[in-house]
C-alpha cells in the first residue's frame, strides 16, 4: 500500500517536472571554457532561435560545428576572424561580434554543456 503511494508520488513528481520544466529552454548550450575566467559572462547558444533560421546541417555539416557540447573550443579571436559563431556573426548574415552582451548573457558559475535537455525532460537521468 505504502509502496503504491510512493510510486504514485514519484509518478506525480515526474509528470509535474515534465509539465513545468524549471529550467532553461530545451537545447540551450552554455559555452564557458574561458569566458568567466577572463572576466565576461558565460555564453548561451539557443538552438531554438537558430533552427528557425538555419537547418542543423548548416552549422553541423557546412560550418563544421562538432555535435558534442563542449567539443568546440571557441575563442573570441577566431570569432572576430570569421570562424565558428563568427561565420554568421560578422555584420552580414547576423550582427557583428561587438555586441558582447547578446552572447555573453549567462549567470556566473554556469557549467559548459547542453541545458534543458537530458537533465530536465529526457529519461537520461533515470
Amino acid at each position, binding site marked *: 500500500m505504502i509502496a503504491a503511494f510512493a510510486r504514485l508520488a514519484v509518478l506525480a513528481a515526474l509528470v509535474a517536472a*515534465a509539465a*513545468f*520544466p*524549471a*529550467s*532553461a*529552454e*530545451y*537545447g*540551450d548550450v*552554455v559555452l564557458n571554457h574561458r569566458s568567466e575566467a577572463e572576466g565576461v*559572462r558565460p555564453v*548561451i547558444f*539557443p*538552438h*531554438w*532561435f537558430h*533552427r*528557425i*533560421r*538555419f*537547418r*542543423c*546541417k*548548416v552549422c*553541423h*555539416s*557546412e*560550418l563544421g560545428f562538432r*555535435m558534442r*557540447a563542449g567539443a568546440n573550443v571557441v575563442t573570441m579571436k577566431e570569432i572576430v576572424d570569421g570562424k565558428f559563431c563568427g*561565420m*554568421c556573426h560578422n555584420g552580414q*548574415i547576423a550582427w557583428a561580434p561587438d*555586441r*558582447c*552582451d*547578446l*552572447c*555573453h*548573457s*549567462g*549567470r*556566473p558559475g*554556469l557549467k559548459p554543456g*547542453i*541545458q*534543458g*535537455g*537530458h537533465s530536465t*525532460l*529526457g*529519461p*537520461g537521468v*533515470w
Partner: protein
Amino acid sequence: MKLSRPWTTLLAGLLVLAAAAAWAQPDLRRWIPLAKDGLHDPASPGTRQLQEPRDALARLAADGAGNQVRWVQALERGEIAPRANLLEGTEVRLREDDILLNLNGGTPIVRFPHRAHTLWLDCSNCHETPFVSKTGANKLDMRRILQGEQCGLCHGAVAFPLTECNRCHSVPRASRGGGPAAGHVPAAPKARP
C-alpha cells in the same frame, strides 16, 4: 423518433458549444521567461534584448515536450523556412525512404523516417558514425540511447526527447511478423513536395 422542441434546442446548443470548443482550442503551452530560466543573468543588459522563446515559438505547430514545437511539422507546413545552406557549392541532399528497426523486440516496431531527418541534417551527420549505412548492420540499444548515444545524441538534447516512446515505436507489431532485425521500406511513389 420525433424530438420535442426543448430537446432539439438543447441538442443544437450542445453542438454549437462543442464546435466552439474545438475551434477555440486554448494553447496551454507555457515558456519560461529568459530572466527566470536559471541560465540568463537577469542583471545582464543582453537578457532584456534577446527574444523570448514564447514570442517565437507560440505560433509554431504545438508539441507537448522539448521546445513544445513539432519542428518537422512546422517546417513541412512552411511556418518556418530555415536555410539549408550558406555556401554556394553545397549539395542539399534529401532522402525519402523509411527503415523499420527492432523487428523482433517486445515494444512496437520502430520506424526511422529518412525524410524528417534529412530535411534538417546532412547524410554525413550520421554516416558512417554513429550509424553505418547498411540496413541491419547497426546494433541499436535502448540503454545506450538513454545515455545519449546513437539516437540519443540528438533526441534528449535538441530533437524531441526520449519520453515520447510512441513517436518512434510507432508500428504495431501485429502488422508485421518476425524476421530480420531491420527492414528497408522504399519511399512512397508520390513523394511529398
